[in-house]
């Protein structure tokens, strides 16, 4: 595992300043959102279907520029960054998509290794790590299976393994436990917490699972009518406390 460095905490922050988003000429989906995710924070994002959770996540993993405002990642405003530097920032972000987005022509092993290949790593450097990670999520015997032969839960675990294999500075997960049994859900949450605790990875989990949210002592951001509010209904202040979710782990 990578050792914690002081500079990680200096730069590893996510900041949204007055961010709004609209697609083409439609109404704004997100309006004037201010958000700061401190280094090492662990947060939930919730809200009704269509509230804009996926759009907010897209802003966070730099798939979509805001219509207004500024998204800063790891201390760097992204609106004027050259494309290569945006790519470099994306390599520090792991994403678990709700619909998994596994590549159908690749095996489970190859799907998990994909971000490492993108980073230019040689297979001899990552083979053992990928195999161990897949074994850890219970897929050690299914390395060479294509996604179409895996169950929904197995595909989800492959997607999670792909998101964390690079030990990202920011992990964004959209309904990461939606297709797995409670034991596996707890195991996966433990993986997220390990990353958060050991590497200082900022974790943002979008979920409808109120049970999961209630079990864990972590800030909850709710999207409603295009605004980001706290569960209490207040607008999110510019800075949040750092939490230690592991204290609340079952």
């Amino acid at each position, binding site marked *: 595992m990578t050792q914690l460095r002081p500079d990680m905490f200096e730069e590893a922050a996510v900041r949204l300043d007055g961010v709004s988003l609209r697609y083409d000429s439609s109404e704004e989906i997100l309006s004037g959102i201010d958000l700061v995710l401190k280094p090492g924070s662990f947060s939930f994002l919730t809200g009704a279907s269509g509230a804009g959770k996926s759009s907010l996540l897209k802003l966070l*993993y*730099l*798939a*979509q*520029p805001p219509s207004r405002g500024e998204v800063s990642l790891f201390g760097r405003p992204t609106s004027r960054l050259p*494309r*290569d530097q*945006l*790519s*470099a*920032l*994306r*390599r*520090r*972000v792991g*994403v678990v998509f709700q619909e998994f*987005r596994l*590549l*159908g*022509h*690749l*095996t489970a*092993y*190859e799907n998990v*290794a*994909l*971000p490492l*290949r*993108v*980073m230019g790593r040689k*297979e001899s450097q990552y*083979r053992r790590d990928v*195999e161990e990670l897949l074994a850890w999520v219970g897929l050690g015997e299914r*390395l*060479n299976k294509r996604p179409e032969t895996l169950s929904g839960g197995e595909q989800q675990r492959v997607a999670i393994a792909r998101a964390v294999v690079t030990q990202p500075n920011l992990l964004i997960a959209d309904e990461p436990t939606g297709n797995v049994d409670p034991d596996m859900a707890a195991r996966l949450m433990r993986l997220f917490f390990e990353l958060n605790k050991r590497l200082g990875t900022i974790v943002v989990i979008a979920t409808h699972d109120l049970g999961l949210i209630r079990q864990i002592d972590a800030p909850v951001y709710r999207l409603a009518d295009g605004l980001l509010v706290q569960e209490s209904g207040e607008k999110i202040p510019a800075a949040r406390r750092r939490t230690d979710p592991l204290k609340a782990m079952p």
Partner: protein
Amino acid sequence: MKARESSLLPLEDAREAALFFVVGALCFLAALAALSAKSTYGAARAWTAEVEGEFTVSLSGADATAADAAARLLSQVEGVREARAFSDAEINALLEPNFGQSGLPADLPVPRLIAVTGEADADDLGPRLSKTLHEAGYQAAVDAHAEWAGDVRRMLSVSRLVALSIVALLSATAIAVIAFATHAALLARRDIVDVLHIAGARDRFIAGLFERRFWLLGLRAGTVGALVALASVAVLIAAGRSGAERTGLLPQLSLDFWDLAVLVVTPVIAGLAARIAASITVMRSLKSVM
């Protein structure tokens, strides 16, 4: 336990098989048009070079003896390589298509003909031949082949330009088809591009995947097209040789080094065109996203 790594793009699908056929067919047509253009140009150059130094002298009211004397006189003119009077048999052979094999009426005044071959660098040879004969008292007309060969040469030049235009048009069409197909392939694989993009792949990395795929496709399709063109030309050459006696007016077909160079270059151009088109299409498409 681990299988070998796969390409980040899926194996070729039906769309690429169709594209392979289209690119191969376009390369076949382009190679054939290029070979035709080159063959036409070569034939025109060889033929005009052959006739440009040729003159036909017709003597009115002269018999065979006078024609032989005139031929000897002309052979002494500076710049003349050879001057030879046509025999009766040769003149009859020339007139046979119009008068048949029964020969000419004895009382028909037929001019005697002298074939003159000049040196390639001889200037104003036609007027000097005419002057020499008139000074010697002959009633003669000198026909310089170069005058009408020039018309033929101009026509062949136009034919060559048309053939080159066809080559250019076919090449441009191939590039446009490849660009269109690349764009379609990109749209069909948007999911892969998105995943790679979000995983932090640089634009050049993603474009490189498509460039390699389409470079190989263009190269392979172009090779097939060029080989089919080579086979077609070989068949034409064989057919031309088997009927050589009756195809004398057609340009002599053959394959030389430059023809083979055209066939070798065709797939390389197709591959490069595919690669460049893929690169431009993918980079432009990626620029439209963050």
